[in-house]
């Protein structure tokens, strides 16, 4: 009885979290353009998506901006984390705190700030400014993934490598870097997700004539009801699921390392 009640509750929570997306998916297969009337199943909206050149172009932009900004943010985060490692405890805490503030700041504030900065620097808003903006918003997340691992790194492995005849550079490349792979992967994946998901920062820094998927969806929906956009959003959601699967695999790797560490300690 108690057990049944609990399962019902947990089921309701899951429903609560997933009902919206369920409605969206349903709508994307609805033959009717209009909500509330189900006139049959159709792939039409997906098909017409593929024929829409604006969307294909926006997809390209999302992909290239995401991949590039994630790579740059990850490298910056890695170098910064290693720099922070050597700092004293107090200044490290301060810098960590400072890196976390932008995480909490409202995206709209970040977007407006970046727009003002770019315009103040005399830059023309476009692809490049989106890219820079995305690095700025991804960097704190990348730090969040990489920093704990870098700080937890034990000097012992580095010293063991020196002891066995490695130069400091060899020790870094052959011992330290491989130990950090899970954190680097997580940082890259999360940075990419931040870039691809972002709407408002992109909106303020993109200028005219260039769209990413999120701004394209927004623009089309403002013009009227577009079931193609429901289809696109559904695809977006599916991409997220795939993405989470990737993260989970990566998380497994991390936790295997962690467990091994714990066993060593025990």
């Amino acid at each position, binding site marked *: 009885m108690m057990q049944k009640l609990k399962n019902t509750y947990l089921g309701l929570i899951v429903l609560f979290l997933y009902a919206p997306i369920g409605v969206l998916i349903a709508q994307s297969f609805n033959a009717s353009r209009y909500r509330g009337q189900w006139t049959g199943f159709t792939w039409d909206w997906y098909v017409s998506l593929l024929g829409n050149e604006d969307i294909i172009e926006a997809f390209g932009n999302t992909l290239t901006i995401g991949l590039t900004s994630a790579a740059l943010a990850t490298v910056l985060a890695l170098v910064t984390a290693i720099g922070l490692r050597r700092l004293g405890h107090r200044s490290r805490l301060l810098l960590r705190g400072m890196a976390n503030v932008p995480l909490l700041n409202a995206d709209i504030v970040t977007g407006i700030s970046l727009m003002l900065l770019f315009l103040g620097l005399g830059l023309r808003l476009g692809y490049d400014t989106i890219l820079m903006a995305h690095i700025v918003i991804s960097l704190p997340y990348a730090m969040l993934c990489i920093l704990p691992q870098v700080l937890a790194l034990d000097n012992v492995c580095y010293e*063991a490598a020196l*002891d066995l005849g490695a130069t400091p550079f060899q020790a870094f490349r052959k011992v330290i870097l491989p130990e950090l792979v899970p954190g680097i992967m997580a940082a890259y994946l999360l940075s990419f997700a931040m870039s691809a998901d972002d709407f408002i920062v992109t909106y303020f820094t993109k200028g005219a004539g260039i769209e990413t998927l999120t701004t394209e969806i927004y623009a089309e929906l403002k013009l009227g009801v577009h079931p193609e956009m429901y289809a696109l959003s559904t695809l977006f959601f599916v991409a997220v699921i795939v993405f989470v699967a990737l993260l989970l695999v990566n998380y497994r790797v991390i936790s295997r390392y962690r467990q091994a560490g714990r066993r060593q*300690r025990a």
Partner: protein
Amino acid sequence: MDKELLKLEHINKSYDGKQVLEDLDLTIHENEFMTLLGPSGCGKTTTLRLIGGFELPDSGRILFDGQDITRLRPEKRPVNTVFQKYSLFSHMDAADNIAFGLKLKGKSKSYIRDKIKYALKLVNLDGYEHASVTQMSGGQQQRIAIARAIVNEPKVLLLDEPLSALDLKLRQSMQRELVKIKKELGITFVFVTHDQQEALSMSDTVVVMNQGWIQQIGTPESVYNEPENAFVADFIGDSNIIDGMMVRDKLVHLLGQDIPCINTGFGENVPVDVQIRPEDIQICEPANGQFRGVIRQVVFKGTVYDITIEAGGFRWLVQTITGHEQGREVGLRLAASNIQIMAKPASEDEEAATDE
């Protein structure tokens, strides 16, 4: 003893203004099993790290086979280290860990393969080439760490409390194995531990350290039976340590009695520390003892009984094979040869370690 291999001369080292090692001199011979023993913070690990090249001394020299290696980088030294823990490379399997040093030196594939096979056999892990090191037990990991160090054929193997993370039974069996490996390789071992049992049962030479000073260097037997000061006596084994006065050669005044002993050369009427091991005290009839006292507590420990006896104003710890009745009056007898006389400490560094 074989010829001198490693020599530390007048080493000073401090961290953040705290002196960790003070004018340390130490000579290590070829093929010696030397153990640095002391409580945490005594400077034993720092000494090892200086030899390994992971720290530089503030002043002083380190000589290897007559050559000054004080400022040589760790990767250039003819020594290898087995660390306390966590030191295996977790993204490599056992064989790749062992091969790490050899690959850097550009050895041939067949040479490396033979070496891995030999080293795994030596540490009793035949056939574990492709085992993931993260899946191994603590004892197996330390064996791989030993194998990884010795394939580089170091002249000296440094071991920094390598067994401290293992449980008692495993630690004891690894102690036996390490001694076996040492004999087979015929190289010098410098071993760091805070466990006196471990130090006594494995080493040729024990170096007892406290607060950056060497307190005593000697064989396990001499360190145990003839401690040079109260710190060593108290740190190694259970002891009764009592304030006494050397009346003249071979006679010590102790808790109101003049007791014969065998030590000479302390002078007349000099205050000394007197050490008597609990197993060296005989319990007898009150009338026959040098001291007369009452049994306060009897605790059965398995092999022996720990008996606390209050006599002459001191609570003696006595160990016996047979039990005794609590509350009974007894006598205590001390054989002259079992009384160890020690000079009073010149500085506070040599004072007996206090229980925490």
